[in-house]
């Protein structure tokens, strides 16, 4: 009865491969000259395998009967010289390709023939069958491949095919792992689930959905394992338990070179060894090239990073008495095509002793980047492209890293958003706390430890002595943030920068952490820059506020002014999204859309596309930061607005 609907449902899940664009793959693959060279070498190898006579001028087995032309170096007759029987080494190397490719074929047929079905079975069935298969697989995987091959060789007979049978069995363990992993992942995908429910048989699902997803990684593995197979084949032949002693196999030729070591026969290493190394290298490079070409963003390579832009020294006026003063800061990131994305532009701010400056804006507005850039911590490949920073009356814009190290941690403390991620998982918390003290003060180890315990007690971490010896993973988020604060305060800095200190924490813990910060600020009298996207936090803690959007400052004001009379539409929109300001019913308003990325910033006002008051003028003219009393606002229409405290707008 439901046959018709079943048929419809089955056709619904789309094979992934069909949708994927294939044409770009070859372009990407052959853009890398190394991959091209590797492909050429492998092609030559295959030619030599099919028609060795075409490439080789001499019979690889026929020596010089007179034995006068033995152990020769390269010459016109013998391009790569001759061996102890006067046989042409170049021809022997060419014929060696036969043994190499045959080795790969035997080993791959065995490895894929055993490994892929077992991996599919194991991943598909799961449960006990999976555990048994994987356990046996892991045992075989851990044993040296050469030893496993030796076991097969003694059971059969010493020959290259039996050696390759052994290598194939050993290599099958790699394919079991790979296939099982892909099967497990794909099994959970929705479309496979849908296909299973609609009654498609497991073999059909495997063929239609899993195999196409397996193929790319399988090809990469085949290329890389081919190189390994050749290496192991040569190893076994070299030991005399692979190819026969007379064969022009590369491993055997190396064994002969070894045998003739004292007889001037050492040159033989070069042709056979060279062919071996180049072939393995070619397979590895080909595998790497295919893998890179399959990846989505293979184009972004570190090779295209442009040189840093040298800046003219600009004398800037900094506010007197400010702890930190930033003037017209800009940060650029290299973009494709030699372009530069300016993720920050014209950012200025200052903060005075004892004051708390709140910095607000959505994610991606450049708040954290401003702070990192100001501290000389611009993440690579970004760079400071303009501006000036002064700390405590001292110009620090281009301070050498060594001098920065003195200031960071001692005069400036920083608290990070994710407290656990900001702690090193491999080091004891006490060690990390003590490090700051040992670097910046003259304390001895025992003094530093005592002070570290004091600091933990100060930020209300219970049982500080025991906690010092624990690792970060033993701390909850809230406790880890207390550690973060203790670290930032360790040397009683003049400035504390708190970058979203409570965002990753529980609501109940957030309040505790903010109270703690307020308390330490009172006690130490330092300046605080509090970065957050939560205006509720600003209302509680800040004296002055700076609003950022899309890498620019859009408004500055005192807290009371900002909340009572916001001047920028963005500020107003932010205020509207505050749960506290939402008195009405219905959904909490949100600002439509997201902060665009630096590459997509509009020409005119950057907020215009999301602004409900935007006019054509906004989209074309670039708004400047204008002074309104002691405050600043970046909006061409700001004079027209009269935004009340959560009131109706009169535009």
């Amino acid at each position, binding site marked *: 009865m439901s046959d018709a609907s079943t048929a419809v449902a089955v056709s619904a899940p789309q094979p992934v491969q069909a949708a994927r664009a294939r044409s770009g793959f070859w372009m990407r693959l052959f853009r890398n000259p190394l991959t091209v060279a590797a492909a050429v070498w492998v092609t030559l190898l295959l030619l030599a395998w099919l028609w060795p006579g075409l490439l080789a001028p001499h019979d690889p087995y026929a020596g010089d009967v007179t034995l006068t032309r033995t152990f020769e170096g390269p010459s016109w007759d013998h391009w790569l010289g001759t061996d102890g029987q006067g046989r042409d080494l170049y021809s022997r190397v060419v014929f060696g390709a036969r043994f190499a490719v045959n080795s790969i074929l035997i080993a791959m047929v065995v490895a894929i023939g055993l490994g892929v079905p077992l991996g599919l079975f194991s991943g598909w069935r799961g449960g006990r069958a999976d555990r048994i298969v994987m356990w046996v697989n892991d045992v075989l995987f851990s044993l040296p491949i050469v030893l496993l091959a030796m076991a097969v060789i003694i059971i059969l007979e010493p020959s290259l095919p039996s050696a390759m049978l052994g290598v194939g069995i050993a290599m099958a363990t790699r394919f079991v792992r790979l296939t099982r992993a892909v099967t497990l992942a794909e099994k959970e995908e929705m479309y496979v689930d849908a296909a299973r429910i609609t009654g498609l048989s497991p073999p059909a699902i495997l063929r239609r959905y899993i195999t196409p997803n397996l193929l790319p990684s399988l090809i990469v593995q085949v290329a890389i394992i081919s190189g390994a197979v050749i*290496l192991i084949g040569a190893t076994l032949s070299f030991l005399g338990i692979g190819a026969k002693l007379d064969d022009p196999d590369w491993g055997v030729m190396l064994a002969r070179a070894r045998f003739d070591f004292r007889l001037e026969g050492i040159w033989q290493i070069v042709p056979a060894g060279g062919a071996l190394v180049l072939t393995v290298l070619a397979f590895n490079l080909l595998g790497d090239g295919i893998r890179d070409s399959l990846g989505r963003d293979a184009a972004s390579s570190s090779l295209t990073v442009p040189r840093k832009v040298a800046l003219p020294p600009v004398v800037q006026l900094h506010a007197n008495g400010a702890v930190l003063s930033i003037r017209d800061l800009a940060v650029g990131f290299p973009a494709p095509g030699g372009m530069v994305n300016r993720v920050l532009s014209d950012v200025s701010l200052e903060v005075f002793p004892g004051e708390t400056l709140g910095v607000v804006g959505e994610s991606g507005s450049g708040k954290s980047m401003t702070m990192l850039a100001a501290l000389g911590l611009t993440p690579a490949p970004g760079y400071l492209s303009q501006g000036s920073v002064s700390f405590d009356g001292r110009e620090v814009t281009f301070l050498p890293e060594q001098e920065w190290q003195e200031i960071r941690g001692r005069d400036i403390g920083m608290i990070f958003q994710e407290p656990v991620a900001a702690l090193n*998982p491999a080091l004891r918390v006490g060690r990390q706390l003590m490090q700051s003290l040992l670097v910046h003060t003259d304390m001895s180890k025992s003094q530093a430890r005592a002070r570290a315990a004091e600091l933990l007690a100060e930020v209300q971490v219970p049982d500080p002595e025991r906690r010092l010896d624990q690792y970060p993973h033993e701390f909850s988020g809230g406790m880890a943030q207390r550690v973060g604060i203790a670290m930032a305060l360790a040397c009683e800095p003049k400035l504390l920068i708190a970058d979203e200190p409570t965002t990753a924490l529980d609501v109940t813990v957030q309040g505790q952490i903010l109270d703690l910060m307020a308390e330490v600020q009172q006690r130490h009298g330092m300046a605080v820059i509090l970065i957050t996207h939560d205006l509720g936090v600003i209302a509680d803690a800040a004296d002055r506020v700076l609003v950022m959007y899309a890498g620019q400052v859009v408004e500055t004001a005192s807290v009371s002014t900002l909340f009572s009379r916001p001047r920028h539409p963005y500020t107003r929109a932010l205020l509207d999204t505050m749960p506290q300001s939402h008195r009405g019913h219905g959904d909490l308003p949100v600002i439509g859309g997201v902060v665009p990325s630096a590459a997509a910033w509009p020409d005119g006002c950057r907020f215009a596309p999301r602004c409900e008051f935007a006019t054509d003028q906004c989209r074309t003219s670039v708004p400047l930061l204008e002074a309104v009393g002691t405050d600043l606002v970046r909006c061409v229409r700001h004079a027209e607005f009269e935004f009340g405290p959560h009131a109706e707008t009169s535009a």
Partner: protein
Amino acid sequence: MARYIGIRLLAMIPLLFAIAVISFAIAVAMEARGSIAGSVCGEGATIECIAQVERQLGLDDPMPIRFVRWLASAATGDLGTSLTNQSVSVSSLIADRIGATLSIVAYSLVIGVAAGMAMGIVSAVRPGGVADRALSVASAALIAAPGFVLAMLLSWWLAVEWGWLSPAGYTRPSESITGWIRSITLPAIGLALPTVALVQRQLRSSMTNALQSRYVLAARARGIRRTSLIGEHALPNAMIPTVTAIGFRAAAALGLTFTVEVVFNINGMGTLLTNAIQTRNVTVLQGSMLVVGIVVLVVNLLVDISYGLLNPKVRLER
């Protein structure tokens, strides 16, 4: 930590059993293909020879009994006698050779890991820099080159350029410590070169990641010095995946050392195994397989222990 090691040790027991089964199965499989005795004794086999070999292998009994008997005597260190020379026990043959093999492998790992770590760190500190690009090219070439070819080139170069002939053969540490080190230095370097490349590649990638992590940024924001950022903050975390890679390489090196031994005329497991295969001496191969398997298990245990040392999360859980 003791508890962690204890659990790892218990987990080794079934693995040990599996390796014993594989080793034993070799003789069973040979038998299934035809008489072992026939192939050991050769074409003009005498009845005495065949009877002797069959008695040694206990071929009259049912298979499970043979396995239990083989395992029981293996547990006491008795791996039977060599099929080609009945007066020599397999365990004494292995005991005689394994020292050289293990010395070379261990020495090569020390050299390879030390040099690879240094190169990996240099690469990761400035990825894309001149040093990094040069080291990455060198690594790609070394990974593709078999250790024995490098060993041969090395000894050739030393002999030609320096007139310094490498001491052939193996000197036991009980005879002379300096002689021992001299005898295994060149083979160990040959075997170590691919290890260097592997460690450099792995550490470069995990170290680059570690240096871009939040905790390193946070440490920089605290004014922690560069050497400490690299050595104390990034390195231990970057070593966690690297240790796994070193473990795999150690097992592979155990198999690849055989060729290096041949190059330098060292009587190690390589010549023992090669001869055993050519004379179809199955008891020697079985015994060697078992011993090498145990060595691999011990290596895995060491890897697990260093994993625990580096990663407090692993060590303290459970």
